[in-house]
């Protein structure tokens, strides 16, 4: 038998971030996706309001997780290097632009809010990528995956409120791009934690991509099929992110490249 190259305890799942942190990625991602899709959809103020509410809920959930709740404002102190600070600042910008857009219905503000929401989504993805202690999060492929699933979820939820052709097109493209991003991420992730993502990844591909695309094609006959497609895309995206944060978040344990020579 060949001698292993490293020695040490096996990785275990981190216990610091639980469902509350996952909720920030699930709800915040969908909310940002909704805001990003809003310029292409009719009834944009309603979508934007819902998007902002989802982002607020996500941030509220993560606020429940922090140990010193009254110091939450300290989160803004390190935008130079911390993606969490940047996410918080992007959230503020998104809320300002989003609320202005909701009440003014100015097209330029709707677009600005959408860009700001994309910035928020990018910061969320980079939060995971900067977590060096968790191999499944620090993989560079996690950034497009988290961004594209947020966009697919948001566009999917937006379909519940209207079926503008441009929005349907965005949804279809986001679905396919998300499937590609998942495939790249899965290929890159040759780790014990990969097994923990398999069920949700399979659901993302089958129920969250193949079925919605089929429903999109079917929607010319039955418009309600779009709603189901949107819901499926959102739910499978949430499931994947929940698993990513709470189930596949193994650390890398400890490893020794050499054993002591006594």
């Amino acid at each position, binding site marked *: *038998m060949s001698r292993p190259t490293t*020695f*040490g*305890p096996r990785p275990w799942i*981190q216990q*610091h*971030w639980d469902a509350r942190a996952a909720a920030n990625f699930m709800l915040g991602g969908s909310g940002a996706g909704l805001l990003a899709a809003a310029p292409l959809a009719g009834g944009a103020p309603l979508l934007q309001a819902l998007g902002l509410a989802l982002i607020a809920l996500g941030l509220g959930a*993560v606020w429940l*997780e*922090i*140990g*010193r709740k009254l*110091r*939450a404002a*300290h*989160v*803004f*102190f*390190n935008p130079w*290097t*911390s*993606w*969490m*600070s940047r996410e*918080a600042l992007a959230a503020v910008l998104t809320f300002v632009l989003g609320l202005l857009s909701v009440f003014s219905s100015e097209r330029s503000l709707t677009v600005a809010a959408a860009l700001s929401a994309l910035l928020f989504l990018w910061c969320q993805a980079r*939060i995971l990528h*900067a*977590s*060096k*202690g*968790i191999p499944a*999060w620090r993989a560079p492929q996690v950034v497009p995956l988290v961004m594209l699933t947020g966009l697919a979820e948001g566009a999917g939820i937006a379909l519940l409120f209207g079926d503008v052709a441009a929005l349907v097109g965005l949804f279809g493209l986001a679905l396919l791009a998300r499937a590609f991003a998942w495939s790249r991420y899965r290929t890159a992730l040759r780790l014990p934690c990969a097994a923990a993502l398999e069920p949700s990844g399979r659901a993302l591909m089958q129920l969250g991509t193949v079925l919605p695309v089929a429903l999109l094609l079917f929607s010319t006959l039955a418009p309600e099929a779009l709603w189901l497609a949107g819901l499926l895309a959102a739910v499978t995206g949430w499931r994947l992110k929940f698993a990513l944060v709470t189930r596949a*978040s193994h*650390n*890398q344990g*400890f*490893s*020794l*490249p*050499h*054993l*002591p*020579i*006594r």
Partner: protein
Amino acid sequence: MVADLRRCVGCQTCTAACKHANATPPGVQWRRVLDMEVGEFPSVKRVFVPVGCMHCEDPPCMHVCPSTATRKRADGIVTIDYDLCIGCAYCAVACPYQARYKTDVAQFAYGAPMPNEEIGNDEKRLGVATKCTFCADRIDSGLAKGLKPGKDPDATPACVNSCIAQALHFGDADDPGSNISELLAENQFFRMHEELGTKPGFYYLWDRK
């Protein structure tokens, strides 16, 4: 810090000394010693590996900290400002060495606080990230008295002072004449998860050169 893996016997005295000096609550071990069993019968070995905060030169915990609570001192010690920390635990998931803890409720080893726990109990440490400080207060107080860290016990971390096998050593790796520099010059060493680029300040000796 240097840990000589050839000398460590896994007695956990350093762990106990750290817990006593820093009054950490149950389940929190700023200094711990892994007890690894490696190999297959009949060639099985046990290896004891002291771990904790590696006081990295490029600490990921500091970069991700949104509140600037985690900082690095000029001497390389990574610290946490308990008044700034919000307890988001982002540093804990960013640390590749599982060195950070967060305790929300005060707990004591035997229910009521022991004398050292009464002295060391600090409300500021609740709900925030905590970790090994290399006994920075002890080092600073020793330096103020003109003592040398790593040589004089009053300026040296409790775990190093307590080590029964002289497996743990502390000193200035940038000083070519220090005990640490000599050990690194005479022995082969590695640092944990070096591939991540964090440049840990904790060296493991495993063989002579």
